[in-house]
């Protein structure tokens, strides 16, 4: 059966398309797409009229945490997927720092099997770079990759020992595995809880210096260069980190970086009155860093925007700021954060969509994230102008620790399609 999605503003960053058009789907696969499908062609069995709304590839999110396995009270793959499809996220990669840690084949298979059985979107697993995320012994990168792990990372426990990181990168390079590394020197961050600077000092909170990000980013880029490894810095939060990646790429290093959507939207002032929903790692930085990150997205220096979805229940957040958990729920707000930047005229629509569709897909070799023949029919229909008030009570994640709570955003998903099947309708 062929289904035509038509009468749409077709947005496909991979081909640079922003024009009236449509997409033809058969068997869960896109068999044709483009402006020539703006009118319903003959031969389609079913017609989906998009009513002039935007039709784009579903979002590919490279950094999602759930509580499954081990902390299902925070979030399950199923509950995360409810939030994901409401936010237009059709593919998500879950981090390995669960309990137990995803550091062997059986656990990778568990995540993929549970994802396929319970989630409404596509779930991919990232494998641990080191056994138990302990930063000591290299995990079974090759075997986990064969089992389907899409990249390898130590998640929020960056490898402290440079000799371990050096060998892990070398080993990963030999297996053509992609390594994601959070640029953070744990010793320099110490007990820091928010961005270092005058505001942290005034509030009496210990700071997380930008230098902790720069030294770690520099180290890992140098080690990746020597190893010939493909390295993605996970969540750049400063202007200089982006420049470090660009400089490395210019030297021929296979280096890229991501940024969390909330870092494009908030700065340290949003922490305001010790708002723990705004406590993230890396922390919200200064306004000039935020602007530089938006600029990095605009010119393609940042390849992917992630939700950095990290569900935390109230008992982890309703605490004094220093004692509260890091992390923000973000699956449902990534697209709106990006379209809000389009409304602020800081990004064009294609610049906003590229790092949440084909950009991240290309980093880990997925065919998704584009409206191309042969790509999976993972689609979203959205209204980029729809205003809405983010109310955490209405978010679908099991934990609703969203820094966007109470914010007015512009742009909402109307329909989400995974493999040709509608999985969400507003």
């Amino acid at each position, binding site marked *: 059966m062929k289904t035509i999605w038509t009468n749409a503003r077709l947005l496909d960053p991979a081909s640079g398309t922003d024009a009236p058009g449509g997409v033809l789907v058969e068997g869960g696969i896109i068999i044709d797409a483009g402006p020539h499908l703006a009118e319903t062609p003959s031969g389609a069995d079913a017609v989906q009229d998009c009513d002039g709304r935007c039709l784009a590839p579903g979002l590919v999110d490279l950094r999602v945490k759930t509580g499954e396995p081990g902390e299902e009270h925070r979030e399950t793959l199923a509950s995360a997927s409810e939030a994901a499809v409401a936010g237009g996220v059709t593919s998500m990669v879950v981090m390995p720092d669960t309990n137990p840690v995803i550091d062997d084949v059986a656990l990778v298979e568990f995540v993929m099997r549970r994802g396929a059985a319970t989630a409404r979107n596509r779930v991919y697993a990232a494998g641990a770079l080191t056994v138990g995320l302990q930063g000591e012994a290299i995990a079974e990168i090759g075997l986990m990759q064969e089992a389907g792990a899409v990249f390898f990372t130590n998640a929020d426990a960056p490898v402290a020992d440079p000799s371990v990181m050096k060998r892990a990168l070398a080993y990963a390079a030999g297996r053509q595995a992609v390594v994601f590394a959070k640029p953070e020197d744990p010793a320099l961050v110490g007990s820091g809880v928010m961005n270092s600077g005058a505001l942290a000092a005034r509030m009496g*909170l210990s700071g997380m210096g930008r230098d902790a990000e720069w030294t770690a980013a520099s180290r890992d880029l140098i080690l990746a260069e020597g190893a010939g490894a493909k390295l993605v810095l996970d969540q750049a939060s400063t202007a200089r980190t982006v420049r470090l990646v660009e400089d490395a790429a210019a030297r021929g290093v296979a280096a890229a970086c991501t940024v969390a959507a909330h870092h494009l939207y908030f700065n340290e002032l949003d922490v305001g009155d010790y708002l723990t929903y705004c406590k993230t790692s890396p922390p919200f930085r200064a306004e000039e860093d935020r602007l530089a990150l938006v600029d990095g997205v605009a010119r393609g220096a940042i390849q992917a925007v992630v939700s950095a979805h990290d569900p935390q229940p109230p008992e982890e957040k*309703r*605490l004094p*700021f220093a004692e509260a958990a890091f992390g923000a729920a973000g699956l449902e707000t990534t697209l709106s954060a990006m379209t809000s930047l389009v409304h602020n005229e800081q990004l064009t629509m294609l610049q906003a969509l590229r790092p949440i569709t084909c950009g991240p897909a290309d980093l880990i070799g997925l065919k998704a994230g584009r409206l191309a023949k042969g790509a999976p029919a993972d689609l979203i229909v959205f209204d980029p102008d729809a205003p809405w008030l983010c109310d955490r009570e209405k978010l679908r994640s099991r934990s609703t620790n969203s820094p966007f709570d109470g914010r007015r955003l512009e742009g909402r998903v109307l329909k989400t399609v995974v493999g040709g099947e509608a999985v969400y309708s507003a």
Partner: protein
Amino acid sequence: MSAAAQGHIFSHRHLLGIDGLHRLDIEYLLDLADAYADATRRDERPEPALADKTVVNLFFENSTRTLSSFEIAAKRLGADVVSMPVSASSIKKGETLIDTAMTLNAMRPDVIVIRHSASGGVKLLSRKVDCAVVNAGDGAHEHPTQALLDALTIRRRKGSVEGLKITLCGDLSHSRVARSTTLALHLLGAEVRLCAPTTLTPAGVETWGAASMHTDFDEALAGADVVMMLRLQLERMDGGYLPSRREYFRYYGLTEERLALASDDALVMHPGPMNRGVEITSAVADGVRSLITEQVEMGVAVREAVLSVLAGNAA
């Protein structure tokens, strides 16, 4: 009463910090405290402004002097006082901070005085209770009654804080006293100079109202009217932030020789407890210019003023 604060209404429900107070708020509290201090010196019993009121002292962090100062202040005004050191009991049982506050709140106190080791911890609790809350120190954030007692001590000796050159020296990074006192003295018109070794110098002290930031103590002392030494935690002097006690004393210890760089009638203060021989010599601490015991005396008066105003507002 100073003319300025006459007829002023202190409209805040809580006292969470100096930040957010108006100069007149501070002068109003100081005027009231001044009267309490005079009454005590005349051995008069003040009006029982807190009769039939319940004051709970909820200290999540050890304290001897601040806790007893609040206790005495509340008792002098006729309150029923319950002091609860929490560090040992409920927190260890896994009860959260907010659970503790809600439990206490259900017992309907009129004022809760809270000390907590986390910055912002007192404000968090204040949102969960119906009564007035006094911040008795939260992490490295604020300690407003200390700032008020410092200001009162200076005002009583010098007549006014306006225009005075006041030097604060010590561990500014970790000091809630430095933040609150700098804010208060700046609001009252003083020129506040801050001094610390570079490893204990926070960013952006101008946002606290400081006029200048110094690494060289001698430079910060030149012509000062008041010198306030801050306590330095001894564990910060084991090579982590500072090489040694003796090196700290060499560059930042307040000696009689160094005090001579300040103005001839300079006064010396310290919020206590002191590390004698580290940040201050005994000769200076016990000398004629020292106001250290007077600060303790003014502490009770200031807390009487704060408790009576907040209990009155809540009634």
